[in-house]
């Protein structure tokens, strides 16, 4: 039985490397592109979503404002249900350690007030390291579009600033 299980496991693992979806970027894009999978119902209090990238993972609350591009690129939210949308994000040549979607609640954001940011902004999903999906993935832009930067936005599992920087 153990051999049988081993055989089945071998077959299953050996057969999961068929053709996979491959993203292409706009030929004129210098930056990243990919697909965002939306899950969960869009909150009624939704104002807008942004797509941003950080050259290094923020170490302080102030680092949260060191994102690119500036001003941030808005992300069109699908109207209903789970869905997948392609995106492209122009970025200068660099290595990026955190690529994420930021959800903003309806309200006036005061950039100098971290309490305001904590109340209105949520990390809605980020690109993850394919080798360790508990960590953010690293993306390199080198004078062209880097494809396959796919991640999930889950409206049922968003995190505020204080989640990353507890008071």
């Amino acid at each position, binding site marked *: 039985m153990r051999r049988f299980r081993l055989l089945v496991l071998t077959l299953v693992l050996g057969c999961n490397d068929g053709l996979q979806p491959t993203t292409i970027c706009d030929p004129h894009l210098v930056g990243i592109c*990919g697909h965002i*999978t939306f899950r969960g119902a869009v909150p009624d209090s939704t104002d807008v979503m942004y797509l941003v990238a950080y050259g290094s993972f923020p170490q302080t609350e102030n680092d949260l404002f060191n994102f690119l591009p500036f001003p941030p690129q808005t992300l069109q939210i699908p109207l209903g249900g789970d869905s997948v*949308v392609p995106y492209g994000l122009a970025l200068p040549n660099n290595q990026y350690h955190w690529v994420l979607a930021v959800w903003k609640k309806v309200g006036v954001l005061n950039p100098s007030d971290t309490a305001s940011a904590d109340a209105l902004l949520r990390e809605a999903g980020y690109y993850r390291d394919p080798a360790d999906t508990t960590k953010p993935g690293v993306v390199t832009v080198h004078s062209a579009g880097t494809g396959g930067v796919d991640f999930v936005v889950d409206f049922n599992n968003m995190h505020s600033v204080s989640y990353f920087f507890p008071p």
Partner: protein
Amino acid sequence: MTSRLALAAALLITTPAAAQQMGTIVGTVRDTSGAPVAGAKVEAVGAAFTLTGQDGRFRLQPVPAGLAHLRVAAFAFRLDSTDVTVPPGDSVSWNVTLKGGVFYLPGLVVTAGKRPESLENVAASVDVLSDTAIARRAVNTVDEAVNRVPGVQFINGQVNIRGSSGFEQGLGARVLLLVDGVPMNEADRAGIDWDLVPVDDAERIEIVKGAGSSLYGSAALGGVVNIITRDIPEGIHGRVRFFGGGFANPPDSLWKFRNFTGMQGGGSLTGSFGTDQVRGALTVGGRHSDGYRQQDASDYLQVAGRGEWLPDPVTHVRFTGTWATHQYQVPLAWCGPNQCANMRGLAYQPFLVDTADSGNHTRSDHGYLTATVTRTPDENTTWMGRASWLRTHFTDFQKAGDDFAVADRFGAEGRIVTTPSPDQTVTVGGELTDNQVTSDIFGNHTQEQFAAYGEAERVVGKLRLTAGVRADFLADDGAGLSAVISPRVAAVLPSTLGIWRASVGRGFRAASMGEKFVTTPVPPFEVVPNPSLHAETAWTGEIGNTAVITPWLSTNTAIFYTRATDYISPELVGDSIQFQNVQRARLAGVDVSLVASPFTPRLTTSVAYTYLDAWELATDSTPGRPLAFRPRHLVTLSADYAVGPASVGADFRYSSRFERVELYETDSRVAAKTLDLRAGWRFGQFDVRLLATNALNYIYTLAPRTLEPVATVTMTVTYVY
């Protein structure tokens, strides 16, 4: 026809016994669940043999009175034998219950040599799919059954035996399809319609590997597939078969292309009536499929009939015919970058086709009629005459303008098999084929083929030697004849190390009218005709061995080598594509298969591996390169476990990544790895089968930008009366 031919063969090998008193042995062969085993070979060793009918019954006669050594052999069962005393002028009953076990190769009767003979006497590599094996696979078409045979691979419907054909959009198969021995390759394209015979009407399918042109002529370059239809039993019988199932959705939501689950289903109804002189059977069936990708729906209807007349004990007249209409949408190449709407930024979308082609569909009507007379005037002679008509009519409905072709293949053959002495058999015959086509893309043309063939077999000690030659004369549109000579010599030698076989022969394939005269746009190119295209030929040799190592283990090994010249291939000439005789090619390799029933007779396993070195040889102007669409490694693993009326099984097929393809050469391509799972349950006259093909939903392609089937689950219920 099979049992009559078997009887004829039995008469041929029966020991002269005019002076002896004779008797009869009757009985039934069943498996351990009590179900009848059809097609089992029951043999009174040295005297006579016959095959069991659909109900598992057999009647073996005449058998010399006295002690007879009986043995019965069938695929997937262990050999059984016993001694029976046959009473003079009377009959004795012998009922057999076969136990599952190793596939027993020796003893089975095949018709690879245009006459029934035991498999162990055939010098070619032959695989046989019995109706039991077909039913166990729960497939719905003949090609699905053939596709898992070791060394055989279908590429988008085009059959390859040891890499024979590659992929040329269905044009010019290098495999000859026979239905009860009658050639059925299309008249215009020389391709194969695999749905000519309802799968339930197939009693067994013989796959002969290697060139068979010395007996069969054109197209038998890479091998021959012979579908043997069932005998019609006496009495009233019926069979009802329904199947239904669904296709899995794409494994990645990015490839999702519809908001419902694709389904397929269909059924067939067969009724037969037979007396000792007249028999008939009629099958009506149809199926529908939503398809597993965009624009892939199809509908299929078929009527097939068979009739037999046995005016006297030595004469057998058989009529067969079928008519089918198949309407199917045309999923051409899948969507490349920015070719289609809803691409979602993907480099390709294998489930979508270019919307420019949406609505394109094809209607294909095809059918055939055959009449065959077989007579055994004396115990040393059998002659056969047959006439046949195959018609194909397709219309491509497309936005750019419709295309059509109506093609007729008329055939006739006469053959005599004589046994001047017990150790000699001579087969001689002549064959006529008249192909006619009317088409807007092929034009109006005729193609005639006249052939004469002969083969002699002689047994010298243990050695069985065969030599034969066939001369084919070809003429297009009434022009001058061109001749192709196809000789072959072969030997079979039983030994303590198994049965050795060796053969060397020449095969050929006449250029089809489609390849010679096609004129059609294939943007951005134009396909132009080449009336000077001539036949491609190949020398092929094989050395093989079949051995039963232990009662539960058998092996079959072959080393093969084919050297082909004037291979017909589509070539780019300026802005045009033209079929030309350009390639010299080598196809060499090894076939190894191992069948075992380890641990318990309930378990049957098999491993088959084909190594193929397929190479287009260098010329003065071009370097050598791999032949396109040939895998270097082809592996098939199978296992079946049966307990009483229940059974489960699995097939795994691995085909290594093609080293070279034509068109879209830079597209991603992967090795093909598919796992099929199946389960069956038989109770009374009902048989229920569950089949999951490509169960892991592995996404791959064999033909360029053409997705192979995704995971499909099908349930089939059959009731036999």
